[in-house]
């Protein structure tokens, strides 16, 4: 082995000089292929269906992906440090149940409900991180376990009932609390943006979080270190980074983002719905993985994740407008994911 390593430099030394700095056609395809495809889709749907090309439809597509988008941004943080979080879907639905429980049964106000949800998300993330970093449980298994745990846990306080105002409690009395209007506004309020009542609060939350996490990962030293940890944890450790702390923080970010998704879900539905959240998980993971292919990044990145979520949203809403049945949509979603992954690993992997 050693001898082979030793002779390599001689063979490769000239190579960098012979490379041309201009982009080849293939590199252009790798870089802008997915964005071009997205624009192509938008143009296609605009021509094929009435009502697709309008500010309302654009905002609505953002709204339809806001919850999975937020979850996807969170899971991107764990992907960056080389981990994975399967518990986000159930963190979201647990947060939704917790919000409903706080307001409907414990009769608390919106602020308390939001804070409790965020605390639950942060706590679950912390727990995931500790189990993965200190108990040495592989990330997929640890978060899978957490997922099942939460699916069960969210049913315990109400003995499996969904939570709605006036519901009958296990002891026979009726719940007297209601969702506070301030909380519901998170899901229903619309801000004026050129057109009156155009942009829903959830879209604003999505955009703000997307910009925040993008800036955090790309431009702060913490984000840079998280990428270093994901790429070569030992090298990061030798460069003085507290590797475990970064990993744990990534899971906390993921948990908090998932709980924000859960809060928006509760605000939109106006009740606490028993749900496993597996569809939320799958859609958001798909968005994050599609994000690998955007701009030829070949690594988890917040911008790519946002585009990935948008891509799925455009596709699904366009297909629904064209009256395509739901199972075809699942198929299309899966096909896009497979193509994106092939794109990432085959085309980009060849560079290495």
């Amino acid at each position: 082995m050693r001898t082979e390593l030793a002779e390599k430099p001689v063979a490769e030394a000239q190579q960098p000089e012979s490379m041309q700095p201009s982009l080849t056609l293939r590199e252009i395809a790798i870089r802008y292929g997915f964005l071009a495809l997205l624009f192509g889709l938008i143009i296609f749907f605009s021509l094929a269906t009435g009502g697709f090309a309008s500010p309302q439809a654009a905002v609505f597509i953002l709204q339809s992906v806001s919850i999975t988008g937020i979850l996807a941004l969170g899971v991107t943080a764990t992907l960056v440090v080389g981990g994975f979080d399967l518990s986000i879907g159930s963190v979201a639905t647990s947060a939704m149940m917790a919000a409903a429980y706080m307001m409907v049964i414990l009769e608390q106000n919106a602020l308390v409900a939001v804070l409790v949800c965020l605390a639950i998300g942060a706590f679950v993330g912390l727990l995931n991180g500790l189990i993965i970093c200190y108990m040495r449980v592989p990330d997929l298994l640890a978060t899978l376990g957490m997922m099942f745990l939460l699916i069960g846990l969210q049913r315990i306080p109400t003995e499996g009932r969904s939570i709605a105002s006036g519901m009958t409690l296990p002891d026979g009395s009726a719940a007297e609390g209601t969702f506070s209007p301030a909380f519901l506004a998170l899901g229903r309020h619309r801000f004026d943006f050129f057109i009156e009542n155009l942009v829903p609060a959830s879209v604003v939350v999505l955009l703000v979080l997307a910009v925040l996490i993008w800036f955090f990962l790309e431009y702060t030293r913490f984000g840079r270190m998280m990428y270093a940890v994901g790429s070569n944890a030992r090298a990061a450790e030798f460069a003085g980074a507290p590797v475990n702390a970064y990993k744990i923080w990534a899971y906390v970010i993921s948990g908090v983002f998932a709980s924000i998704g859960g809060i928006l879900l509760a605000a939109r539905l106006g009740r606490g719905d028993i749900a496993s959240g597996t569809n939320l998980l799958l859609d958001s993971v798909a968005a994050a993985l599609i994000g690998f292919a955007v701009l030829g990044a070949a690594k988890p990145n917040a911008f790519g994740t946002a585009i990935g979520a948008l891509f799925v949203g455009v596709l699904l809403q366009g297909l629904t407008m064209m009256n395509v049945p739901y199972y075809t949509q699942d198929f299309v979603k899966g096909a896009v994911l497979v193509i994106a992954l092939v794109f990432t690993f085959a085309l980009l992997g060849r560079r290495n």
Partner: protein
Amino acid sequence: MKLTRRHLGRLTAGLLGATLLWPAAASAQDMPAPFDNPGDVEIALVRYLSTGDFFQAYLSGVEAQAEALGVNLRVLDSRQDAALQADMVDQAIALGVDGIVIQHGLTESMKEAAQRAVDAGIKVVAFDVNVENEAIPQIEQSDRDLARLALEQAIEDNGESWKAAYVYVPGIAPLDRRNETWMEFKEKYPGIEQVAEFGTLDNPIANSVANQARSVLSANPDTQVVFAPYDEFAKGVKIAVDEAGLSDGIKIYSADISTADISAMREPNSAWVATAATNPAVVGEVSVRALAMLLADEDPGENVVVPPTLITQQLLNDEDVKNMQELSQKMPQFAHADVAVPDWMPLPERD
């Protein structure tokens, strides 16, 4: 503070329950075998679907009626795993239960398991799943009647010609039966024009359906009626209608009801105007009563149909109904079905 109050409530409920058991036990002698000694009778509820308010309420009905009879109830929940559900029937056979209620499931997977139970001398009733077995009475909440009641109301409100969007996922037995009625109605009233069909069971269902409905409504802004014959669908459509600001022009007709549905229907300017429903708790009670009649060697009939009730927004507002409990109180036909009630049958207590 609140917690202690609830604890007290739970305590009194428990005490009340204990005292209620007394008369049931005292009158046990008057009941036919094997209910003269109900403590020895064990029945099993084998479930396919359990998530959601409907199934929760159904379970509470089963529990209430089992308690009224004084029999032991065992709940086996396969959580949408068809193969597991069949195994659970075998498990119940092995446990030596006297009767089984099969709640939902797939004909293909349950047919043979049900036959094995019958062969083992166990009495079986099936709710909302056709196990193709003459010895097994079918409990039905009559999905056709549900759809018919809701659609008749739609005709009454909107006349005989309107543009409709329809929410449907094929392959789910009750939805398929409701779909048959919808097909008949479209044939009968050619003025009904279906402009879109959509639907999904991705959970949370209401959220996914809302996303779809938004697209459908922006593609078809002239839609007048949405027929969403499952309350989770209707909730999703209502969210979409509100978000699109179309609640003046669109009316939603659905099936099934829950407390959350009541508040959604009663929201100011709600587009959700009517739903047809059977009380799931009553269906649960009827299931157990039918099984009890079988155990006492009485015939409940091949099909035990629990009749549905039409519930309109108007009616809820007029009576100021806030939850399922009040709905039962104010609409006695909703609280109790006169089905499978021989003289000896003890009924659950009501308030």
